């Protein structure tokens, strides 16, 4: 994806008060460390050159970790620059609950998976649905106005941080 798209993504995240770190694979452990609030739980990232091995993130997720972890680390299959949206592709590793239960969600997305807009995600979604799979557009943090004022952090995370992993040269 073009640098413009990633820049747009960053500015959308900024407007949502969602932090964003750009790193190459080598810098990933440090980037993760900087935003991790332990204890942390995660699922495999499936991104070349990037792994949770050797980080404080515990895998695989268990019910106790879902309840007690401060941070959940997952990949985002795609991201949408226009709205700062993360496309969380639910799968058998537990990407969906790990991105949902802990108070902080750290999402890791490859630079080339940052798409300009919702329309550009149609093919990705269409293929997933056809294969019986599920995805979530997650934009910003969980919030509610139902108690008479806007409150962040309801059933989902109160903090979200995105790590964009740049392409290998």
């Amino acid at each position, binding site marked *: 994806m073009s640098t413009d798209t990633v820049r747009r993504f960053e500015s959308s995240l900024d407007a949502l008060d969602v932090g964003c770190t750009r790193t190459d694979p080598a810098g990933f452990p440090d980037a993760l460390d900087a935003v991790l609030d332990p204890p942390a739980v995660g699922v495999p990232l499936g991104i070349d050159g990037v792994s949770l091995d050797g980080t404080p993130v515990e895998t695989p997720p268990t019910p106790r970790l879902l309840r007690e972890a401060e941070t959940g680390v997952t990949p985002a299959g795609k991201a949408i620059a226009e709205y700062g949206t993360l496309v969380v592709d639910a799968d058998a590793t537990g990407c*969906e609950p790990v991105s949902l239960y802990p108070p902080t969600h750290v999402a890791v997305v490859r630079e080339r998976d940052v798409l300009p807009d919702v329309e550009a995600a149609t093919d990705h979604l269409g293929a997933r*649905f056809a294969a019986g799979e599920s995805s979530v557009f997650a934009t910003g943090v969980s919030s*509610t106005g139902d108690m008479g004022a806007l409150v962040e952090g309801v059933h989902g995370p109160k903090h979200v941080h995105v790590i964009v992993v740049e392409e290998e040269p």
Partner: protein
Amino acid sequence: MSAGRERRRKAEKIRHLLETEGDAVHENTTVFNEDRYEVTERFDDFEALRDEARAIKEDAIERLPELIEELRESVEANGGHLYLADDAADANRYVTEVAAEEEAETLVKSKSMTSEEIDVNEALEAEGVDVWETDLGEFVLQVADEAPSHLVGPSLHKTREDVAELFNHVFEPEDPFETAEELTEFARDYLGERIRDADVGMTGANFVVADSGTITLVTNEGNARKSAVTPDTHVAVAGVEKIIPSADDLQPFVELISKTATGQDISQYVTMLTPPVDSPTIDFDAPDEPLGSGDGERDFHLVLVDNGRFDMREDEHLKETLYCIRCGACANSCANFQHVGGHAFGGETYTGGIATGWEAGIGGEEAADDFNDLCTGCSRCVNACPVKIDIPWINTVVRDRLNRGHDPDAFDHLVEGLTPDEESAGVDLQKRLFGNFETLAELGSKTAPLSNWVASSRPARALLERVAGIDSRRELPAFERETLVEWFDARGGSRVPQTGAEREAVLYPDVYTNHVLTERGKAAVRVLEALDVHVRIPSAPSSGRAPFSQGMVATAEAKARGVSDRLGPYVDDGYDVVVVEPSDIAMFEREYEKLLPGDEHESLAEHSYEIAEYVYGLLENGGDAAALRDGTGVAVDYHSHCQQRTQGLEGYTVSVLDAAGFDVTTSDVECCGMAGSFGYKQEYYELSMDVGEDLREQFTDDDALLAASGTSCVEQLGDLLPRDVTHPVQLLAPR
């Protein structure tokens, strides 16, 4: 119940809601509404996507039986079950059977209006299943044992203080709750425990994709995600109308729904599940085993609910309701709703303008009887609706049907002769009087000023209030002895000769300009002539706006016919039609589409102009603004009419006043609150004044001139502010 007592009961209910819920509803709905304007204005694709969404819905409803079968195959291929329920009882029977099979003790739900419609909570509880609403708004209502007051914000009639008081009373915390944060944290933890323990998760569905079996849920809290994915068994309940053909069709709706609902670019979570989902099962009783390692298996049931929808599909007028995506924009953009909320403006389940379609479709017209009149036809919801449903028309059609269903009124004989309409016996007397305003106006002018003295006398006002529910706190319009048409004839017609004139125009003598506000008509003539327009004012029937607004569609149709017959020949001869009353230009442009043959409507709509729109066009085409009155340095507060704004006509008045040098301040309320006859009605007088308060607050400079285009806005402003009110054209007319 007598009509008078019924009106007093209604007035009392509205008064109570204005006092208890009005402020919170107003605060919340106006924020949604303002945010909607903001977000849609900066979204370039808005109009194109509305068209696309509309087309997708039209196609999907057309092909519904076939799509249901395709969806069934998709769901079953995924390993789930689809049940098509005929009605609420059938749906509830299926859901309770699923719960029984799962030996469910508890079920957690995310927000779903369809589940409210079928009262599934009661059905489950009767079978011993504990049901918990996990959307915080719904949870508040569950604790309070109240009904939703809004499609999207079910508890938005409650303030933080209300919720704190409720929770402190029910849950008796050691330290009483005060802040929204404390309340949210408590509710989240309380419900979090119930979600972990639940045997079944129930959700609704905003959209259901036929070719993959994917259901889409749009939420901000994350509770739908948790409810769907935490228990092994997921039951989704959705109306049959939620089906769209394929994943490709999802994008317009995902883009539109959050913008029109809450004014967000996109909601926090757009969850697209193809159940049973791949996410591992979660067994909180085995906390240290990896997710998915137990012997639990995911199970999914999609319960599609008919409950009247297939009949709606066959109903030419109610059918459009099925395109509704339940975003609530029609409620948020509605001045009456903003003040009184869904506990008045709503039926058994649904709220706001579109509620008339839903309630009538599900429960029969009678189900909409109590609130249908709160739609004044102001049309502010028309451009707000993401799927372009003509919500005022649905309200008018249902009103018409209700009119026909009512018993003949005992007082009908009193007004015989005053109500020469096309309606069958049984139309409420109040509606009948307002619907036949033209006849009253003709008689009023003929007998003025005596008619005005009699009408404003105390005994007459008392009688009008008692018999017809016309509130005695309102001043009645005063009829002019000399009508505009008579004045124009008496002066010898147009002072600009036809030969050599810049344009030739018919000034339509709408019933108000002809009989009541004749000065604005005379001013319009002077302005047009100053810009070298040859003017004609033939006598012509009223537009039918008055009967239309009372749901007297046959009468309105007859009027439209008459107008078209009268003005058509002028249009054919190359005349433009200029209209002073905005509700009438809106009638020609919008409502006549329903009342006249297509070509006649198109021809009249194409050649008709609102007066300021016409003047704007003249000035743009070389007309000299110096021929108008110089307004340099004069401050004007201008309120545009609701229907005028919907037609995109507000800007012309502002531009023309600007061109003449006036310093213009505009209002941005959706409606003045008078809305034709609405504010005259005894049962709605207080609501009307409450709505007007928003407008009053916008115009604080008592030294500014006050102008409004609509007759009823003029009357309302006259009651709200201690200033004279004129039509803008009166400000522009050379002296």
